[in-house]
């Protein structure tokens, strides 16, 4: 079952062998940012989740970090 880990601590995820890793927005709010307006924050969250879906359908053979550009 392919799994994507959305995490700020990407080096830890790589170390333990998570294969699909998406960079999160922060330790205290992995999928958000209280400094943004609510609609911008939700757009940020959507970008991260879409990136996670992209990672899920991408074939990988080793721990790979997908950044949210």
């Amino acid at each position, binding site marked *: 079952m392919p799994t994507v880990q959305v995490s*700020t*601590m*990407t*080096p*830890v995820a790589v*170390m333990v062998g998570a294969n699909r890793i998406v*960079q*999160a*927005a*922060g*330790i*205290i709010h992995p999928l958000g940012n209280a400094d943004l307006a609510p609609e911008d924050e939700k757009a940020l969250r959507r970008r991260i989740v879409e990136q996670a879906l992209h990672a899920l359908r991408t074939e990988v053979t080793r721990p790979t970090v997908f950044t949210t550009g």
Partner: protein
Amino acid sequence: MPRYTTAAMRLELRWSDVEEVAAAAATWLVGARLEVDLDALRALLAADARLGAVRLDLVHPGERVRIGRVFDVIAPRARLDGEDFPGVLGAVARAGDGRTLALAGVAVVATDQQTDNVGTLAVIDMAGPTAALSAFGSTHNLVISAWPAPGAGRSDYLAAVRLAALKAAVHLARAAGEREPDRVEVFALPPSPRVPAECAHLPRVAYVFQIHSHQRPTGLDEGILYGDPVRRMLPTIVHPNEVLDGAVLRGFMGRSVTTWAIQNHPVIRALYARHGRALWFAGVVVTVAQATEPERVRSAFLAAGLVAHALGADGAVLTKIGGGAPHVDMAQAAAQCEALGVKTTVVVEDMSTDGSAEGMLLFDLPGVDAMVNVGSSQEPLTLPPMDRVVGADDLVPRLQGQTRATYGTLCGAIEQVGATRVMAEVR
């Protein structure tokens, strides 16, 4: 040769050894006996509107006493040539140059009377085997218990408690007054590049000091570097004397580090001790552990750049603060140093919580292969029964008898900046 005029920093710690502390009608130091006017000191501390009642207790090494609800420990210091704890207690100004009074054998212990989450607070034992594990089991301790004034918020209260402890630390050190110190310790380091020819062969060594972790963002009053809450701090260079002389205070997340250890910084002392003989102490870079990936990466290469390019260091020691995640910030900075050819050692905590060596580390980065550890804070520890509990009236039933705890609960047993002699050994 042109004459350069940049001044070298020179800190004199003027130590008075204290062997006895007693309540008295006035605060002064008589021989090795520190007499403290507790009423006057209490009045001084209670003047803060954010605080309600203030209680002071004196506890002594060998007494069967457990101090509970420990928040932070401060070393008594008073500067003769500048502001005390500048930016937090005194006005913002440079520390680290000039004469500072210091008392050996005494510590100020601040307790936290507000939090319900007592699991995160620490204890100090004054007798028995657990006293021997911590520096504060063998100091005479002035314990401050201050309760919040009605309406004082959490951050206000903690800022007030810490300020009270700093005031008390200065008040006690001033008792040494004009008398001759028992010892004078001199910390003098010229501007980093000015290496005399006879020392030019020595490896240049820097220290990278992580002073806060933004796993827990700082409050507005949570001054850490010269009073700054280091919210957006990028790595920067400070003189080691500034750290020893009160420029850096611990934040309010008190996990396994005390301000006392920073004021007596063991890495800075170790590098000074070998300076000019086995190494050239190139300087200190202060950093914070970040809460987002871009900040963490940026901070890591900027810190490494300062170490390699500004300080021209050949080697660096790195320490971390806070919990698990800051290990990665430290290790990334170390890896960036290694990538620039700077050899590193890092000081880590054993993060395994079940004593398995496989779980000790939270990172594995190229070149970061020289690791020293400060033990496992999660390892169980039995606290022996005591006759009295100070600083935590509400916890007497839980704390006075034999208590199951962990090394991390015993304040001073594990000091992340490296003061500890506890080490996790792989067996």
